[in-house]
């Protein structure tokens, strides 16, 4: 711990829901030295965004900061008057929001937003000095600062550029502390890496402390000095980043790391059963107890306090694992395609158009039965268009498609009902995959009776079996999708697909909207289904997931296949420069260190 006076000291911070008073975030205590980056990791519902806002003394509608203090350079933000607090925001402690597209005022030009911040906080600056400061701020984040760029509107910038503008807005007043709320989630892997470098460099050079909030451990691992894990509104574990990855003490942290896929090696993922309780529904005692294999009556009765474990580390658990390091089991490698058997699904000469411009250029490939073929590409590579074309959607698509020897219409061209049954599709956003007005049983029964001439009774029976097969409790059948978590809904979607007894299951980024722990469970399920004979076509941009599940990889760039081959071979020895670039940006330095 560097000796200089701490940049940020948070003591017993607590934020409650406004009307009902149930705690969203409680007992938060942290200290941060200048130049130090603290990673704050938490899955959805853990209250990380509420915490981020509370550090700047801001509570969204429906929430209220009810206790604790936030000292920045010795000044308690929460105790300031409204006027003083407003002055402190930006100058003392700055904030970088999550989704760049939504966080910039669409009517304000880039230059305007920047000079406005200066005009408010640094009134004494004459216009010329202010313009210079704006230009300097843009240069710091690697953006052009010519007048044309300054006059641009947010919608005229790329995602990465927008995020850099937000960084400039945060850096411009030289704050002592910066709070970054998942700044890279909305970006593609390559831009994400650039932004992370930018942040790391800035904090080091300016000696600025930073709190980097994320739901993705792999991103945090590479950037932060110390990491803190947030679960159900409470700090589960705080430790040096290297220590936490090697020797996680809290069962939840251990579970998270276990569920984290890595690009470097094919890990066998272990997932955490159940899902995190949302504010107001948290059980007594340790919130993680219901999901913890080591839970005892003590855990269920009393709330564990954050106590110091090994020097410099803190853990809130009655039975922390102090000595046992984390071992990552390696799954068996991807099975190469057997030469003799014919491909189950072959596609050739696929072209697709979006309006006037072409998106797919003469794409052709084949998918082996009982294997998982991954289609990998960044946003805009056309992978989703391709997937939808195979699944049976998309009007401006041409090409041949053959399944099990019989030709099948591509895109929205007509298909026989039995052929439609053999290919099933799972969508990315679980919250829009199920009809909200029908309960799960009705959703499933309708599909069964569409494809198979069975009675309602028989259909309901099959539905119950499918739900069990995707490891969901039978009680889910009578509930409406609205009452289920993201992970549960995605499993129901998979169950719906399984009911059709498909031969090929196309998964379009089905885990990207899920938390790491839930993603692991779903990937686990898919691998079990593959083992039971299902052929899977997995579309994603996340190479770590590909490493876990794929046997065969097809890399797509700007509508063309640049490389394809056996999964481990392609990932270990990428031939094409673009693939190499993707792998480099996905794998974090620390993880590489772990692997060696």
């Amino acid at each position, binding site marked *: 711990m560097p000796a200089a006076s701490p940049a940020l000291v948070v003591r017993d911070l607590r934020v409650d829901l*406004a*009307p009902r008073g149930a705690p969203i975030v409680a007992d938060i205590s942290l200290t941060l030295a200048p130049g130090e980056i603290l990673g704050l990791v938490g899955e959805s519902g853990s209250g990380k965004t509420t915490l981020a806002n509370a550090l700047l*003394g*801001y*509570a*969204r*509608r*429906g929430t*209220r*900061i*009810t206790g604790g203090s936030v000292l920045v350079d010795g000044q308690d933000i*929460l105790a300031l008057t*409204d006027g003083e*607090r407003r002055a402190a925001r930006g100058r003392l402690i700055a904030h970088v929001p999550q989704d760049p597209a939504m966080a910039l005022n669409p009517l304000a030009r880039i230059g305007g937003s920047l000079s406005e911040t200066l005009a408010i906080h640094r009134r004494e600056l004459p216009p010329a000095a202010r313009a210079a400061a704006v230009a300097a701020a843009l240069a710091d984040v690697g953006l052009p600062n010519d007048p044309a760029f300054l006059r641009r509107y947010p919608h005229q910038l790329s995602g990465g550029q927008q995020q850099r503008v937000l960084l400039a807005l945060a850096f411009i007043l030289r704050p002592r502390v910066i709070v970054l709320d998942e700044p890279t989630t909305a970006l593609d892997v390559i831009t994400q890496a650039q932004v992370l470098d930018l942040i790391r460099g800035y904090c080091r050079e300016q000696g600025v402390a930073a709190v980097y909030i994320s739901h993705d451990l792999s991103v945090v691992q590479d950037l932060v000095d110390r990491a803190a894990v947030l679960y159900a509104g409470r700090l589960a574990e705080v430790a040096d980043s290297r220590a936490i990855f090697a020797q996680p003490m809290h069962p939840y942290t251990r579970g998270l790391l276990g569920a984290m896929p890595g690009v470097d090696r094919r890990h066998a993922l272990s997932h955490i059963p159940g899902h995190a309780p949302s504010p107001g529904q948290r059980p007594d005692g340790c919130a993680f107890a219901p999901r913890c294999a080591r839970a005892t009556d003590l855990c269920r009765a009393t709330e564990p306090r954050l106590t110091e474990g090994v020097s410099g580390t803190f853990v809130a658990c009655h039975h922390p694992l102090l000595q046992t390091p984390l071992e990552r089991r390696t799954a068996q490698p991807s099975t190469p395609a057997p030469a003799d058997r014919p491909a189950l699904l072959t596609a050739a000469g696929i072209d697709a158009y979006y309006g006037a411009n072409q998106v797919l250029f003469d794409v052709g490939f084949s998918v082996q039965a009982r294997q998982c073929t991954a289609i990998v590409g960044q946003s805009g590579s056309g992978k989703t268009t391709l997937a*939808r074309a195979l*699944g*049976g*959607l998309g009007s401006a698509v041409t090409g041949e498609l053959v399944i099990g020897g019989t030709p099948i219409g591509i895109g*929205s061209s007509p*298909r026989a*009902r039995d052929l*439609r*049954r053999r290919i*099933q*599709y799972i*969508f*990315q*956003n679980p919250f*829009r*995959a*199920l*009809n*909200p*007005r*029908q309960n799960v049983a009705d959703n499933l029964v*309708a*599909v069964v009776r*569409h*494809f198979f001439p069975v009675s309602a009774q028989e259909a309901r029976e099959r539905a119950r079996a499918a739900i069990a097969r995707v490891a969901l409790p039978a009680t889910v059948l009578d509930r*409406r*999708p*609205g009452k289920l978590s993201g992970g549960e809904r995605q499993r129901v*979607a998979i169950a*719906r697909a399984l009911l*059709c007894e498909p031969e090929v299951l196309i998964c379009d980024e089905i885990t990207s909207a899920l938390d790491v722990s839930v993603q692991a469970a779903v990937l686990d399920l898919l691998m079990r289904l593959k083992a039971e004979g299902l052929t899977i076509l997995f579309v994603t941009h996340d190479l770590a997931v590909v490493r876990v599940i794929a046997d065969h990889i097809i890399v797509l760039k700007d509508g063309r296949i640049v490389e394809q081959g056996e999964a481990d071979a392609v990932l270990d020895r990428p031939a094409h420069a673009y693939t190499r670039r993707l792998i480099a940006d996905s794998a974090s330095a620390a993880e590489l260190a772990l692997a060696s």
Partner: protein
Amino acid sequence: MTSRRRRPNRWRNERQIRAGTVLLAAVLAIALPGPWLAPHDPNALIGAPYGPPGAGAWLGYDYLGRDIWSRLLAGGLSIFWMSIAASILALAAGAAIGMLSAYRKGAVDQGVVWSTDVLFAFPDLILVLLVVSMLGRAPWLIVLLVAIAFLPGVIRLSRGVTLGIVEQEYVDSARMMGFSSAHILLREVLPNMITPLLVQFGVMLTWAIGMLSGLSFLGYGVAPPAADWGLMINENRAGLLVQPWAVLAPVAMIALFALGTNLIAEGIGRINARIEEEA
């Protein structure tokens, strides 16, 4: 601590709906059983024209000497069923057209959008006045015309909502599985349109009441000698300053009726919107 928010508006909606129900119940208590409760025959000529309120008739007599209170009791039924019929008709037709055109897209959709623009541009009252003066005052015709006047609004709403729903993945999934369009529309799209349509029904009901009574007021509504609130206003308007009750009573009833339905519609709309958010 900053930005503290007072009680959310959940209880305001219950109160709003309760107030609306009370008002509506009061009006219906007069309108529905009215014809059988009326002390005198609504058309009977019993008092002096514009006779002041007195023993026989506590609201007095209208321009022909008929008991205002009896006519008020008998006059609510027509406006009640006609406004509900018009709203339901417009809702059913509008929802169907809007849903189909948004689902089909292409030329059909453009055609529907353009024709709703035409109907919107056409001042609806002109259409109603012209046709009523052409074909006479049959109640079913008036209901049909009022429904047509509301049609573009409902089409636009249902088309907008359907466009939103059709983008959803569960509709794509149904399409991929080869479900028929009819199935998709009836089981996937329609159930999700219920809430916005319900709210629009409430708003339309209020407009229908206003329009129907306006028509009677201009003399194009229900034909005499029927007892109808709008007609009562029209008939007795000349004697407004001599016997105000003949006009004030029906005006008050119409206003309360419209207010009641509106409060209920607003309340239901807001509660449903919040349920929708939580789903």
